[in-house]
């Protein structure tokens, strides 16, 4: 009798212990798994840094760069991935995310929805991971990330990384009829200019991977 009791007790203990261990294991392994996946998510010193170049003198303000981006990636009007900025003096700038060398968005994002690729420095935001806290909206000096009112998630330009991976050019660059908007390695582009442009924030904050060449007046 007493033997039986002992057996049943130990069985119960075993089941209890098993459940506890299993739960602990499951809780432990979930973040561990995602942690491993996110390891080195933000490349601080990528092999190459791709960036945009905008030559204002060549831009005819047709906005095709904006349109093809929206048509392809279906973003809502209030979450623009690319904008053609204009002012009353006739100045213009086509700008998206600048895939900064020091991306403030990636630094503050609590859920590591942002990655910066080792191979080309492209900053990719994964809307499926985003909790929608809005911290990156404050952190980014260039207003690149936006929260969708529909999904509650942030999205932004990803530099058509899939097209680039398959050897094609980004859509906005490809569609530009005058080659005002081009792209290339920052090691070359930065020889021609920077993003100290018409009231834009100091590039020292995030080191944007974009140059803008103002037209001569």
């Amino acid at each position, binding site marked *: 009798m007493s033997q039986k009791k002992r057996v049943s007790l130990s069985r119960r203990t075993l089941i209890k212990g098993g459940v506890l261990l299993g739960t602990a294991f499951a809780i432990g392994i*979930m*973040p561990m798994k*995602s*942690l491993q996946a*996110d390891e080195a998510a*933000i490349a601080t010193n990528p092999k190459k840094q791709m960036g945009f170049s905008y030559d204002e003198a060549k831009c005819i303000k047709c906005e095709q760069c904006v349109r093809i981006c929206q048509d392809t990636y279906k973003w809502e009007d209030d979450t623009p991935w690319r904008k053609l*900025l*204009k*002012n009353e003096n006739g*100045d*213009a*700038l086509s700008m998206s995310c600048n895939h900064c060398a020091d991306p*403030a968005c990636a*630094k*503050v*994002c*609590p*859920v*590591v929805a942002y990655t910066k690729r080792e191979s080309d420095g492209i900053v990719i935001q994964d*809307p499926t*991971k*985003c*909790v*929608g*806290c*809005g*911290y990156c*909206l*404050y*952190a*980014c*000096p*260039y*207003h690149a990330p936006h*929260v*969708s009112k529909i*999904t*509650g*998630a*942030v999205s932004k330009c990803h530099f058509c990384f899939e097209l680039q991976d398959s050897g094609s050019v980004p859509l906005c660059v490809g569609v530009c009829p005058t080659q005002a908007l081009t792209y290339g390695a920052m090691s070359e582009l930065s020889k021609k200019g920077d993003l100290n*442009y*018409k*009231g*834009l*924030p100091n590039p020292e*904050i995030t080191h944007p991977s974009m140059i803008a060449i103002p037209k001569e007046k």
Partner: protein
Amino acid sequence: MGHWGWLIAIYLFLGGLGAGAYLSSFAAEKGLLGKTTNLHRVGYYVSAPIVAFGALLLITDLGQGLKKPWLIIRMFLNPTSVMTWGIYIITAFIFVAFIKAYFVWRKRPAPEVLSYLGAILALGTAAYTGMLLAVVEGVPFWNSYLMPVIFVASALSTGLSLTSLLAHFFGKRQVHDAKITQVHLWLISTEIIFVAAFFALVYSGSQEVAKQSANRLLTASLALPFWALFVIVGLVGPLLYYIQQSLSHKSTEPLLMKEQNAYNHAGTLENTQQGPGGNGKSQNILLLSDVAVLVGGLTLRCVIVFAALPIWSGFLN
């Protein structure tokens, strides 16, 4: 810009309030608030629930995380994000403060290491609420190392006020040691100095956008809540009252025996319960002053969150 609104402002306020309540009871327990005190328990009870409620508000403010709550667990993942630090600190604080409250409730001595750990985490929680804003270079007004200092000063002050209020309404003994008034006077003075220094730094700095944000508080859209609710009600009113109390204290012990003009119109709180150490009217003014500190603390978080202006307007010059 302007994704963050009321919920985040209240979250930052409650984070500081809960942390301050813990530290008030901790200080009382360690004898820093005078020999006769009834503040040594109630702050512990309310600290974890207040911070937890604040965290709940943060979650309510999430966009996608509210619809897909399993994403929230990922908020532990980015050690470079101050928000992730905050999640670590707040989670640990809620946990420790809850255990500490259990010990206090059972009237059992809690391990010293637990109480001190809670106090460190409480300071961390209060500082985090300011750090969250202070690290954002994209918002020059927030991007000041004085932000966490101001938030900690306000957290301690509001926490002490809340603990005093609760101890008054729920405590068994009505005592109010003069030491509390002195500590509170010191806290409010510190806060005033740091707030003044903050504005001085903003206006002497080179960030035009930060000055525009500061103008919102001092002269433009947020001037009414800033001056009326934060400065007059939350700082100057309590400051004058604590000064007057400290002065009258030097001549008459125990506290709250004498009351003078200036505040008589304000003694409208319903509770006129008399403590052994004071008359009803002065007790009311003390309570009112604690309420005023809380109003000021909440206003501070709101105006600072609402005054945010991005470093770049998003337009070409």
